[in-house]
Structures are given as C-alpha cells and as structure tokens.
C-alpha cells in the first residue's frame, strides 16, 4: 500500500476522499510532459471553490480538465500542479424550450447536451471534436468551433450567461438567462477562449436555435485545388449558400471520401426545412456538376457521419494528426490557405489542408511520424508558417505538435496587439498565476 501524498491528502480533507483520484490514474491527466501531482473531481461549484481557495492559499497551480480531447492545445505548462477534473459536474440544470435557453454544468459533454436539446427540435450550434467526450466547459475554454462556424458563429456567440470560480475561490456569474443583455460588462466573451487562465467555468447558459430538420452533405471532387476554390466561392455567393463549406486536400480528403477521385474535395453542409433543402441540394448539385469530377449527395446517417468526421479531423481519437495548425484568415485569403499544401516541414510529406471557405482560414494537418526530425527544425518550420499566415493578414495557432517542439515555439504565434491589456487582465484575475500557468498566449 502506498502512502497518500500530502497534497492528495489535503484535497481529500477539503472535499472528501472519493473526490480525489487514484494516483495510478494521474498519467491520464498529463498535459504534454507534465503529470499532475494530484487530480480532484468535484461534484459541485462549492467544491470547486474550496479547491481554488486552497490553491490560492498554497500557490499550487491548477489545471482545469474536461474531456481531455484538446489537452494538446497551448504551450507547455509552467510548473507542476493539480488537475481539476470537471466531468463530475455534468447535470442539465434547466432547459426551457419555449424561452430557447438552456443551463448546463461545465462537465456535461457536447453530445449529451445536443441529445437533450434535439428531443425538442432545438440545438445550440457549438461543436467540438470527439463530442462524446468533449465537455461544454472545455469547448468554451478553448473556444473551439466546428464546420458550420461560418453560418452559426463561435461558442462565444451562443453563451449568454456563465458561472465561474475565480482563482481566489470566489464564485461569480456574468450575463444571465435572457437572450439579449447589456447589463454590465460582457465577461461571457472574455472567459470564452481564455483556456481556463482567468477562472474555472462551472456552469453555462446558452441561447438556442431551432435545429434544422434535415441535413445534407454535398461532396464534390475537383481536378485541382484552384478549380475547387472557384467552385466553392461561386457557391458561397449564392442565396442558397450552405451553412458550412470546406475544401480538403491530401490525406484529409481521402479520410472523408476514400472513393472520390481528384486532388481536392469540396464539402458543402446544408441544413434546413424539407422544402428549402430540396432547393439547396438541387441548386448546389446543378452549380457544381459541370465543373466537378464527381458530385455525391449524402443524407441521413451518411451526412451525420461525414459532419462528425470533418469535426473530428483535428483530434481524431483513432489516428490523431501529429501536427495540426489552425490558420486564422479572411475568406479572401482562400487561395493563400490552400497554397500551404505545398509546405515542406523538414523531411515530412506536405500537409493536408482543410480550408473553411465561408469563415476564412482553416487547418493544416500532418499525420506523419517524424521521430528522426530535430524538434528545433520542426519548430522553425512552424514559425515560418506563423509568419506566412501573418503576412496574408491572419495568424496561425499550432494546435497540436510533439512536446519536444513546443519548447522553442509560442504555439499561439506572434503576440497580438493588446498583449499588455491581456497581461493586466491575467494579473487582475489570477494575481498568483495559478490557473493553467504558462499555457496561453505570450506565456500567460
């Protein structure tokens, strides 16, 4: 029998032994090379507050944890600490279909929330890779979005209220449960995408939308990326433009459509009511038939599977990419984004590109192993990509790469204008730098 480490013992005294995870499981909570010294799984906000107040007193770093699907995101943690597992808080608190609002705890999964809302024909159009595991809190903290972001916006556009526990253990809320609200500052948007560096999200209130009654995915293969880009931009300009429109090259395209020929794959995701869906699909097929090599319309389960596969690409649990870079850019930079498919990163094959036509930007994905490549050279290559993205008016975030590469790279790219305000924010909210230290932009 092992002796209980003091920190785990302190946590057990705080909120009970059953809330403290077995030391044997700690490697599950690893963030890159960092294995936490203890993991605690509270079941309510008061317990989260107790843990944070304790951390505030002791100065021990806290790494909030959800479904652990995107732990790759961010720089290497600055110092050892504990994992704060929020998956024990997964209740649907209040669903009001007639008000089009829902309140849910942070540890509920995206799939769980979606299933509850779908029963009533509603949805909150947020999506994250591996929705069965990804939590609502993690989706908000990372600000991650899915393939229909162009039409529906980002998670921050749907969050209308939030409960958080601050770095000092204080429990506060912002926003409310009404869909329109300018009462006080908008902290919902500040917490969303802050990677848990300002506060721990414990509960979220979303506004809802009626869910489309039908979905369809139109897949078209093109002889080259340029032809695909023209066809996609043409579709984007139509009244019947889809909710999401993407161009895929390389192995990413093969994964989505193994049997489709051609160098580039365009994927249009449409959703709506039956009558309009007929028009959307027919007109899209009509527009693309003459310029595409092949056009295929997927509906029902096949459409759902394709949307899921596209969402999961950056974090596919069976075959995750070795490197994933998110490019932020304007839609007009589509061809610049597609040109990244020629990137040579040390001795690796060129990346797959997944370009988001309507929203702008996209992702570069490598599945290759590169054990023999020097980490510093890979990091330099990634810095070149960040610089190139900057030169076309955007930026590049290295969402996933080997731990060894992270040492010499800020995965978030060039420090943004306003970095000094961000530093002051961090000092205001987390003066002792205990929340996710070191992982965010500029080492915050």
């Amino acid at each position, binding site marked *: 029998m092992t002796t209980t480490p003091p920190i785990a013992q302190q946590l057990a005294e705080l909120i009970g032994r059953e809330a403290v995870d077995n030391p044997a499981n700690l490697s599950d909570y690893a963030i890159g090379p960092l294995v936490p010294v203890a993991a605690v799984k509270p079941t309510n906000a008061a317990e989260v507050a107790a843990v944070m107040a304790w951390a505030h007193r002791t100065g021990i770093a806290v790494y909030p944890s959800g479904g652990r699907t995107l732990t790759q995101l961010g720089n290497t943690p600055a110092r050892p600490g504990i994992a704060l597992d929020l998956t024990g808080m997964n209740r649907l608190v209040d669903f009001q*279909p007639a008000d089009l609002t829902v309140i849910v705890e942070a540890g509920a999964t995206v799939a769980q929330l979606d299933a509850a809302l779908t029963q009533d024909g*509603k949805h909150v159009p947020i999506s994250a890779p591996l929705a069965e595991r990804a939590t609502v809190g993690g989706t908000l903290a990372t600000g991650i979005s899915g393939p229909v972001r162009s039409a529906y916006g980002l998670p921050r556009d749907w969050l209308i209220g939030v409960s958080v526990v601050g770095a000092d253990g204080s429990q506060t809320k912002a926003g409310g449960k*009404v869909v*329109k609200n300018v009462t006080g500052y908008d902290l919902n948007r500040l917490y969303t995408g802050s990677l848990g560096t300002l506060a721990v999200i414990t509960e979220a209130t979303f506004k809802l939308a009626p869910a489309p009654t039908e979905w369809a995915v139109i897949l078209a293969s093109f002889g080259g990326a340029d032809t695909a880009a023209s066809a996609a931009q043409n579709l984007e300009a139509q009244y019947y433009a889809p909710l999401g429109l993407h161009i895929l090259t390389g192995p990413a395209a093969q994964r989505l459509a193994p049997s489709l020929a051609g160098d580039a794959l365009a994927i249009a995701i449409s959703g709506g009511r039956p009558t309009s869906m007929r028009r959307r699909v027919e007109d899209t097929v009509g527009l693309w038939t003459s310029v595409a090599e092949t056009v295929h319309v997927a509906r029902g389960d096949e459409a759902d599977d394709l949307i899921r596969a596209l969402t999961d690409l950056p974090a596919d649990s069976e075959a995750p990419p070795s490197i994933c870079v998110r490019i932020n850019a304007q839609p007009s930079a589509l061809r610049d984004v597609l040109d990244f498919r020629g990137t040579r990163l040390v001795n690796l094959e060129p990346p797959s590109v997944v370009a988001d036509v309507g929203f702008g930007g996209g992702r570069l994905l490598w599945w290759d192993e590169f054990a023999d490549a020097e980490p510093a050279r890979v990091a330099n290559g990634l810095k070149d990509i960040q610089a190139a993205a900057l030169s076309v008016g955007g930026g590049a975030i290295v969402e996933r790469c080997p731990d060894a590469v992270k040492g010499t790279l800020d995965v978030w790219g060039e420090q943004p204008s306003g970095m000094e305000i961000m530093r002051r924010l961090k000092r205001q909210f987390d003066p002792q730098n205990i929340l996710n230290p070191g992982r965010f*932009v500029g080492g915050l």
Partner: protein
Amino acid sequence: MNGNELLASIRAVVGDDYVIAHREDLLVYEYDGSVDRSMPRAVVLPADTDQVSRVMALAYEAGVTVVGRGSGTGLSGGAITPPEGLQIAFPRMDRILDVDTVNRTALVEPGVINLDLDNHVRRFGMRYAPDPSSQRACSLGGNIAENAGGPHCLAYGATTNHVIGMEVVLEDGEIVHLGSMAREAAGYDLRGAFVGSEGTFGITTKILVRLLPLPETVRTFLGIFPDIDSACTAVSAVIGHGIVPAALEMIDALSIKAVQNVTDAGYPNDAGAVLLIELEGLNEEVDEVSGEVEAALWDTGAADVRVAEDDAERERLWVGRKTAFGAFGTIAPNYYLVDGVVPRTRLTQMLRKVTEVSERYGITIANVFHAGDGNLHPCMLFDAREPGVMESAMAAAAELMEECALLGGTLSGEHGIGLEKKEFMPLVYTDADMEAMQRVREAFAPKNRLNPGKIFPDGSYWRPSAHPAAYTAGMYI
C-alpha cells in the same frame, strides 16, 4: 497644467475651430437621450486617430476625465460628462473607409451613422444587421459603446456579433487593435469585452464590421390582435413552433394611436396590439414558414393578418415602428422608457405588471418593443413640468426593473446601464460579480479616466443635475 493650458494644447492638436468651450455652444452637448444633463468643460472634435490619441494623452497627463460621444441618442446617460470633463465627439470622423464584397466587411470611422452604412452597403447586395430605432441618427462608435440592438437582433444578434476588429485609443492615448481582420484571433477576446463597455475601456477610432448578404426574400406580416395578452400568446406560439423570425415586434394600442397621429403606418386604430413579424431567407423557406406563422397568429386570436404587398408597404410598416418614440410627443411632452428583459414566456406576466404599475402611479405607459427576444420598452409618457411627476416616473421604473429581475430577466437589453440604472445593478449582480467586472476595467483603464461614475453603483461620486424644473417641454422627444 490648468484647464486653460490643457485646452490651448488641445487646440494646437485639433485646430481652434474644433474645440468648443463657450457655454452657449456647449448647450447641445450637456445632454443625451436620457433624463440627465451636465455641461462638459469642453468638447473636442478630432479629425483622425492620431488627434484622438494626442488629445487623450494630454487629458491623461492633466488628470482630466474623457467621455466619448456618438450622436447623443443614448438612453442611459452614457454620454453625460462631468463638469470638469472633456467630451470627444466624432462628426469629423464619419467616413466609410472600405467596403469589401469578398469578405463581406466594411471598415468605418466611429462617426458613421448606422443607417448611412446600411444604405451604402445595400448597393453591393449586403447590409449591416443591427438596426436600433435611432438608426437614422446614431453612430457606429456609440453602437459599439452600448452594444446596440434593434429589431433584427432577434435573428442576427446585437452589435457584438457584427464587429470583427477595432482600433481603439486607451485612456493614456495608446492606440491598440482589438480582434483582427479575421473572424477569430489568438488571445483573450478583448474585442468582445470592449463592445458594450459604455466608453469606460477606450475610444473607438476605426471599426471593421461584418456585413450580411441580402436575403432572396423578405416578407413582413402585420398581426392584428384585440388585446396585448393574445398578442403575447402569439409570440410564444411562433417561437414555440421552432420559428425565429428576423424580427418580431409588438406595438400596443396607445403606441398605435401615437404612430397614426403622425404618419399612416397602416396600423388599424381600433387594434389592441399589433405584431410586426419579418421572415427572411430562400423563397421556399419563407413560403413554408409563412404558412406556419399565419396559422399561429390565427390560432392565438388574431383579428386579422396582413402581409406587406410590396417594398413600399413594408417600409411603411417599419417607419411606424421606428418613429413610435418620436410620435409619443403627440401624447405627452416627455417620455422615459425602461429597457428591461424577461424570458420570452414571462412577457404576459410582465406586461400585466406594467399595466398595474401604470394604474397605481397614474402614469400613462405605452409599449412598443422587441417581443421576440423578451426585450420590453415600457414607455412612461408625462409632462415633466407637473410637480412630482418625474419622481413618480422614476419610482415606477424602479418597480418595473425589480419585476424584470424577479422574473429571471435583467435591467437592460440594449440601452446600457450608464447613470440611469447603475444603482439597480445589485438586483442582478452580487458585489463579487461586479468586482470581477471591475477587474476588466482595471486592465483596460487602470486610472479609470474614461466615463467614470457609470454602470456600477457608487452613491458618492459626481451626480448630474437632472432636475425637472430645468426641462423645456418637448425637449426630450
């Protein structure tokens, strides 16, 4: 540096003609659309970002408060400036710098008028969605400060959903870019925190807004109801059907009367309430949803349902809605409106409270509001020259705000807190909640030199001299 030296330095930056400091010239800058008033020390009219930055730096060094002013249409006292403070206004920074049809964006200066932007980009097949009732007058800079809404926010969200990036000047004159040209950027969402900060974080000098493509079809309905209760039921029925229209507005009998006094908007004089409903989208989509909307209106007791036959009729219906507040001048010389929000299913309950409060205080209240998202605008109509009436209106407003909070709603949906509602913040937020908010202000404006004394209850700082005796009848309409 004393006040006169500061003004001399500022004149050297912007030019003598663009510093207003004579009492009679300052009269129009001492109030906004709210009930408060206070004369600033001076008003500065800069020509560009560099001038804004230099003026702010000078004021910062002199320890002088700065308040930004858009068009002065704000309803919560956001532009009211303390007597020793400087106001910066933007009539000279009113250019649309770029319209990008590929990225569907426009780059504008803060003084651009909301409707001018919308009209301009419609030529390119696009539009700017947030459409406050004051859109003929209000500016984009002011819209950002207040996170302005409007009828079409029901489907498209408020100003914050339509701002991609901004150039802002901080209290010490530093120029910072928030957001980016792309819709997503690394780091904290400073852009999102800034929008709606009521001028306390910085002064906006350039704005990159998102534009939407014009829809294939727009169809506007007028649902005519015998009373406000049945109209509320219809609102719930439409939303409950899984339909979120582009806009869903309620206009009550008194508001109909006021509107019809000044223009024939086509609202029937004998209706108890009308709903103005707009659907947008593909032809097929609008056709399909129209049938369901009409059925929902008939099912909930509509006396009649009309569809605008053409653009002219559609425009007429909307002119009625958007001129309602001005039209209240035909009923009483002054008005004061409450911007509360309740969950949509509580509308009926809330409106009963409005009626009850109206009767108890003996104050006429008209209702014209964004029913689809539960954002009420109970509007008290009175003559401020009558002794005690202003106090009654304020007390009635307080009761209505309390009721909104009690029903799970909030104090303001789109007008901001400003001076007007700051003492009511504890109805919806704890001290700890407000402390967290203040931390954000500390990060943007550590010296709190921008629009201080707004939003948060303080009870001690400078109060403006809102006194009914100072009112000229009709001035606030």
